């Protein structure tokens, strides 16, 4: 059981690390969110699962089970909230008129998009 916990924890740390390295290496805000928005989700869920398993190492008493359930609940809420938060940050970047970085410096579609009605 503790071996599985160690594997999950190291996989989570690896994905967190790639998220941070990607944050430093990618060229602009939008592509940086690719690294952090995805790496954090899987990293945190894997680490919480690893912690829940490690906590069960001391036996299946009611207290231990409750603590593991709470850890899994944190994982579920994280799983729902993180993509939404990523979207909210990107929406804020869009609203402030940030242009995405492209190779030739031109946007592929009209950006920011004009709407049919004023919003």
């Amino acid at each position: 059981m503790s071996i599985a916990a160690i594997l999950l924890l190291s996989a989570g740390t690896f994905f967190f690390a790639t998220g941070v390295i990607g944050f430093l290496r990618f060229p602009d805000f939008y592509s940086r969110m690719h690294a952090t928005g995805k790496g954090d989700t899987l990293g945190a869920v894997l680490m919480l699962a690893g912690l829940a398993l490690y906590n069960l190492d001391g036996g299946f008493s009611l207290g231990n089970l409750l603590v593991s359930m709470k850890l899994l609940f944190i994982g579920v809420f994280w799983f729902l909230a993180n993509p939404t938060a990523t979207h909210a940050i990107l929406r804020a970047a869009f609203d402030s008129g940030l242009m995405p970085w492209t190779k030739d410096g031109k946007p592929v579609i009209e950006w920011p998009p004009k709407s049919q009605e004023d919003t």
Partner: protein
Amino acid sequence: MAFVVSFIILFVFWMFLSGRFDYFHLSLGIISCAIVAHASHDLLFKDIRAKNRHIEVIRFIKYLPWLFYQIVLANIHVAYLVLHPRTLKLIDPHIIRFKTGLRKDLSLVTFGNSITLTPGTITVLIKEGHYYVHAIDRFVAEGLPGDMEKMVGHIYMED
């Protein structure tokens, strides 16, 4: 009806979080769950009388393993891009736009979150029935909207 369902959900959640099963803590839980359920029952279940809600829940649970598999793929993809020595040559980010056939709010949210979690794409904006998606390279951009829109539409019975 909505009051009873939200009271039960809140009370089960209370017992998980408190972990004490004596009369004092359980009665505290009953009182506070009743107040919260009374205040917010029309918030949690706006359209509880909609038919076939349980089918949507079952289909959503069936959808989750596939989504988790996609998340693992997305992370491996990002890790490959990040650890590649020539990242800037490999990526070609741009924004694409496509029209969606989904109408319900919940399916729009699910589809947006699923796009964010699948490889190489994140949702930037949903506006007037169009999704604006930031794609990290051209290959993933051509794959959209793909089967996922149909799957999400199938969950919320829009097909």
